[in-house]
């Protein structure tokens, strides 16, 4: 972590909102991208990003001096995101075509994207997965979202959710098995 950021964090800890504004400037775009990838809705992703920064502001006193800011912030964001998504019952609402094409457009600039993938096929696949996810329980959805939507390891998921690693592994396994069953039955 560079000195400048640690100075900003120190000032923000003392209640300096300007300093916190600089931290927002430096990290909000990445946080927003992560939230958007998880929930697929721009409005909700913005709410999640703001909520995570608000939680970070409230909890700055608990931030360990000298440790990097972004991983700490992202832990808060992921935790907040999965909670908000459950509260909002995000998985019950189909992804709109507008939102999907917007997401595709935003992801196209990222490296490693298969340009040849058929949009129509993707819509069908996403809808199938969404319907299957809606039938899992909340904890299973949380681990799946963090594993595949945030690309976290099992140890990181354990840290974010405050569960033992063994619990994360077992819930992830059960969620995968159930999802496989649901997807197989959906595809006939």
């Amino acid at each position, binding site marked *: 972590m560079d000195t400048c950021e640690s100075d900003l964090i120190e000032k923000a800890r003392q*209640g300096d*909102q300007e300093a*916190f*504004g600089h931290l*927002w*400037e430096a990290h*909000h*775009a*990445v946080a*927003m*991208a*992560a939230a*958007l*990838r*998880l929930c697929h809705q721009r409005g909700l992703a913005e*709410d999640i*990003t*703001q*909520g995570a*920064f*608000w*939680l*970070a*502001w*409230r*909890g*700055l*006193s*608990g931030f360990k001096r000298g440790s990097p800011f972004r991983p700490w912030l992202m832990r*808060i964001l992921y*935790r*907040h995101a999965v*909670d908000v998504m*459950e*509260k*909002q019952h995000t998985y019950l609402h189909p992804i709109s075509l507008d939102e999907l094409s917007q*997401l595709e457009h*935003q*992801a196209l*600039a*990222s490296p*490693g994207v298969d340009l040849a993938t058929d949009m129509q096929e*993707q819509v069908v*696949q*996403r809808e*199938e*997965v*969404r319907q299957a*996810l809606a039938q899992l329980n909340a904890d299973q959805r949380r681990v*799946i979202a963090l594993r*595949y*939507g945030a*690309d976290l390891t099992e140890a990181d998921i354990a840290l*974010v959710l*405050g569960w033992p690693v063994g619990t994360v592994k077992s819930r992830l396994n059960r969620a995968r098995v159930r*999802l*496989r069953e649901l*997807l*197989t039955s959906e*595809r006939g």
Partner: protein
Amino acid sequence: MYEWKQEGSNREQPDLEESLATYYGPQMREQPLSSASWQRLRSQLGPQRPPRKWRKPGLHRFWRRNDRSDPAYIRETFYRMTHEAPVFYPVSLLQCSFSARTRMPSVEVSAFGRNKIKLRLPSTTEMLISQPELDVLVATGLARYQYEQEPKHRVLRLLLDFALLLSSVAAILFILQDRLISIIPIAILLCALWLLHLHGRRLAFRADVLIVQWLGREAVCRGLHALADRSRSPRRGKWGEPSLAERIERVCGSRVTIEEDRLMHVGR
């Protein structure tokens, strides 16, 4: 032949990892937000939580009781509630404890000790309590305390406690003497316990009516729903206390809409 069939079916049905990768899509590039977004957040930044104090072992914890270490935002909420009620109670009534193991914030009213309203909150940053939840908890504590202070409730509680004590002693004595009559004090004991349970629930429901008068139904519903969303079993009540689901049913009648739930972590 078999292998070809399997390959063919794989091509038609993408495996789970692939399906999930498609669902979540590739990594996104950075998504900068407008400055209005920061202004909106900035308007909501309130006081920060003070750092947790290191608790020293030994006698220190006894004289630490006089040290008011409750976070400023909790004291502010308490002052605001007493102002809105309006009731005149000192902030020293409130005791706040944070624990990493606490997932579900709760409030208890105790008949003993200096701090009568005990607030238990989660300490991990990721589980920080939102303002509507805090408002409801503090108001609940104040309302229940106010009812428990009423002479008729105090007398009733005293009588029940006395019956409980007396029947327990009698039951033990009769059991030791192997007398069949021990059934009677045991029955009284169970009755007293049941009455205490009913009394606690009745007070809790009456306190809920009071907090609706103080905060307004919408704010109470928002707080109760936020608490219920956090709880793993909102339908499970404790002894002498109704479950969150019961409270919501009585106070709100039905669930608040999803739109009203939005941004409940961002507080006022």
